[in-house]
């Protein structure tokens, strides 16, 4: 896995570019969190990395296979949760029994083993997000992009999901780019935390949080130091 290097990335209207010669690094094998206010261009940056939009500049080191956890679940409402997950596995695993086993194990890890036969419209928002997380981890990608995946969830559920997510991530340690405007998510999950803001967008802050994720507590002075720095930069 190589670092992803964004070099002179430019996108937007000619007279009012959203991004102009924007440069940024994403560290391989780490959780790279990008913080920013709503509408600053976080999702645009992710769309550029995934190749969904045309842009000027260079983005190198992006692996061929990418998993994506979207803000809204983007599950196929007309088929069961199981079939939603099976769809992304079919390229890698021809044997149906193998795919079934992998899906069952992942759903069990995320504590949603009872939703496999249900339609996405029959499960809660929190369960739908866990299905998205399952889909992202089941797909054998080297890069995972997550776009405000815990938005709108209550604190208890969010904390449980973050823990489950980190449990799954520890198994394969793929590169993660996580976009959020929640400072606490950034502190609990990030190895590298950056803030982008301005028009055109700039990276106004970047730091490494070296503490092991399993021992992080929001009340820990080590983290509160970063929290204060981040909040100061955002304000």
């Amino acid at each position, binding site marked *: 896995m190589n670092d992803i290097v964004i070099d002179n990335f430019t996108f937007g209207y000619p007279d009012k570019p959203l991004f102009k010669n924007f440069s940024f690094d994403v560290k391989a094998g780490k959780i790279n969190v990008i913080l920013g206010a709503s509408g600053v261009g976080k999702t645009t940056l992710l769309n550029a990395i*995934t190749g*969904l939009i045309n842009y000027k500049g260079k983005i190198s080191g992006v692996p061929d*296979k*990418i*998993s*994506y956890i*979207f803000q*809204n679940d*983007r599950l*196929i*409402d*007309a*088929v*069961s949760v199981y*079939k939603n997950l099976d*769809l*992304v596995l*079919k*390229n890698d695993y021809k044997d149906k029994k193998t795919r079934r086993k992998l899906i069952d194990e992942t759903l069990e890890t995320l504590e949603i083993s009872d939703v496999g036969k249900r*339609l996405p419209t029959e499960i809660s928002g929190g369960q739908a997000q866990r299905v998205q997380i399952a*889909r992202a981890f089941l*797909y054998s990608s080297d890069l995972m992009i997550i776009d405000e995946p815990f938005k709108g969830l209550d604190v208890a559920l969010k904390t449980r999901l973050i823990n489950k997510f980190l449990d799954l991530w520890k198994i394969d340690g793929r590169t993660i780019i996580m976009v959020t405007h929640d400072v606490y998510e950034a502190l609990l999950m990030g190895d590298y935390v950056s803030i982008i803001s301005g028009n055109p967008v700039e990276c106004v802050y970047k730091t490494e949080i070296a503490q092991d994720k399993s021992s992080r507590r929001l009340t820990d002075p080590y983290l509160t130091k970063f929290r204060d720095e981040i909040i100061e930069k955002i304000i």
Partner: protein
Amino acid sequence: MSKKKLKSLKKPLLNVIYPCIAVALMLAIWAIFAAVKNKPFLYPSPAETLKIFFSLGAEDGFFKAVFSSIGRSLLSFLISFICAFTLAVVNSLFEPLHKIFTPVVSVLRSAPTMAVILLCMLWLDYSSAPVLIGFLVAFPIMYQSFYTAITGVDKGLTEMAEIYKIPVYRRITGIYIPCIAGAVFDVSQSTVSLTFKVVIAAEVLCYTKNSVGFNMIKANLGAEIALLAAWTIVAVIISFIAELFVILLKKAWEAAR
């Protein structure tokens, strides 16, 4: 029988009981109306009509007429379905084609059915005209519904498929078809019975031999109102069976997803 078993039987039983009540009510209203009018020649009773209905099967040419009408209606429906679906897929990929096609569909939808029937009678023979008429009525309805369903598939899902590198054929079978299937079944359910009704109506006007419609016009010309009513029941039943078939197909699909 345990309470739990009784509870589980409740819904299926009600699904049978309610329609039976509806049929019984309709028959009761019919019987009361016929009794009040007291002109059995013009207003036959349900008993007399049903007696004739149950004897129709023994008549010469009954099954030939019924199956011919079913065949014409099904042919009309299938041609409409295939054409509507194919064009909806093609036009969803090429927007200018849809824009060219939309006024044509609007004209077909707006044209009075009787005018369509009269024109087709001039252009085609008595056997083919009902098929074309059924097509001209069913096709625009199905095309519009299929096109709306196809273009209504969430663009977010196509982006998801792009990112997860799902091959095109699997996007069609795994995303597009499941997403539009509900709408396809719903419009097919309503259009199949409409097609049957229109084809039989066309058979009446075209004097299509060996058909349900022809037997209706024969009964009408012979002032055999009870016989006409009996053939109407035949038409209703075959239309209902066609609709039921689509409903069962939909249920099978829902169970498999």
